């Protein structure tokens, strides 16, 4: 296994472009995500946040540009390197992507059973139960996914992304469809987990109020690129219209 030196930036995307057939999702996008920070990614619906997260997590291959993860330049043809880097990543999909042939417990346990996981077998059960307890689903451990509501399934997906303590955790709309109380609980969980693990967390969300409470930095996506990167305070005081729309929005 190649070793990783702690890099200043957990993720560096340099001039990356992603197209689907003739449709350009983003073009020449550059983004640097500092290590051990919580990053918020905001932008209007369908602006390409989910696709960007998938490219940064090596699920999609960019059409051009350079991607660096944990200081290593990603070579999409090197399957060994890809597998190694992916083992350092947690990802919660917007569409959840839970394994419907497994129950709640086994879904959350799955990342810990992957070859190369450095969690000792005797600790697996403890970890799964602890994270299920944190998302309020300990009593549903043996339930099939079909017995859970959409919001509960979302919490399972968040738990699955975090359970293996990845170095980078990508969360795509972790609180979408959840009530304000549960949303606040999820954001608290993310903040607490971040303090415990010092992982780099990237959250794509429309819940600006929630992001404001826990994010160190925010990145605003518009016009097929990143138009702003900075602290919450900077975002609230900038004159950029795409950023103001999110951070200084007032009802007219």
């Amino acid at each position: 296994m190649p070793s990783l030196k702690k890099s200043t930036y957990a993720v560096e995307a340099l001039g990356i472009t992603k197209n689907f057939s003739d449709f350009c999702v983003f073009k020449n996008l550059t983004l640097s995500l500092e290590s051990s920070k919580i990053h918020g990614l905001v932008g209007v619906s369908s602006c390409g946040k989910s696709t960007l997260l998938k490219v940064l997590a090596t699920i999609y291959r960019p059409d051009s540009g350079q991607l660096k993860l944990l200081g290593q330049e990603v070579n999409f043809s090197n399957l060994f390197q890809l597998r190694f880097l992916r083992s350092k990543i947690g990802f919660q999909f917007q569409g959840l992507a839970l394994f419907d042939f497994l129950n709640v417990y086994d879904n959350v346990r799955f990342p810990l059973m992957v070859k190369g996981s450095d969690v000792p077998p005797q600790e697996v059960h403890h970890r799964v139960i602890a994270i299920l307890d944190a998302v309020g689903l300990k009593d549903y451990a043996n339930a099939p996914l079909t017995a859970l509501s959409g919001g509960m399934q979302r919490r399972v997906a968040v738990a699955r992304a975090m359970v293996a303590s990845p170095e980078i955790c990508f969360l795509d709309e972790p609180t979408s469809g959840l009530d304000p109380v549960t949303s606040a609980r999820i954001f608290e969980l993310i903040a607490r987990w971040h303090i415990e693990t010092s992982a780099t967390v990237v959250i794509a969300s429309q819940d600006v109020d929630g992001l404001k409470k826990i994010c160190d930095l925010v990145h605003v996506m518009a016009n097929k690129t990143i138009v702003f990167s900075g602290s919450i305070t900077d975002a609230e005081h900038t004159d950029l219209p795409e950023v103001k729309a999110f951070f200084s929005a007032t009802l007219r």
Partner: protein
Amino acid sequence: MTSDRIRNIPLLELARIIGRTFVGIAEIIGGMTLLQFRVLRAMLTLDIDYDETLRQFYKVGVKSLAVVVFTAILSGAIMVLQGEHYVRSTGATSLVGWAAGTGVLAEIGPLLIGLMFSGRVGANNTAELGSMVVTEQISALRALAIDPVKYLVVPRFLTMIVMLVLLTGLGDLFALMGGALTSHLLLQIDFRLFWQSVLDSHLLSEFYMGLCKGFAFGGAIAITSCYFGLNTKGGARGVGRAVNDSVVTSAIAIFAVNILVVVLWY
């Protein structure tokens, strides 16, 4: 009407349609060959998920047993019914076992069981993998550093081959039982005479050929159904299209492989 329509298509457009069709076929064959190669590579390195393989064995075995037994009994009965006229006219009752055995063990049994298996297990497999693609479960596996071919395709490939060989053997037995029962009820041939006729015919070669066909059909169905499942595009309609393409291609593959086995056997 149709010929008019064909005549009205500009030559260039016709060439484009033909070209596109050939490229599409080449893409499918190439994709399936590549998938087969990746499966064999994983098997050679023994990089197999044994839990998933066991789960597949249970699922495939339980799902197919009833349908295979039913198909086998009917195929044995059909072989006897086909020969009934000749047996009645010639009085060659001692040849019924031979006729039913030869047809069932070498050809009809494996072929019908293979087709039923494809319709039942192959179609289900494509639908399952296709649903996993459209709900991003395959992407989730990749994100967890798991190769979907190793985790999902290799266990299915192994299971389908082993199960189809076993089911072909079991199906042979039930087909002969179906033949014996039909000849007894329709032609009043004694059970003992029927089985004696089967045993005297020395049909071991046909039996082995049937098992070989089961092996080859299992591999063909597994690769075809997994290929179309993993290449599903679009939502629910895409899954439906993938299942349809998988069943049709599997049937073509079964007939092609059948010819290949017969040619190589003799």
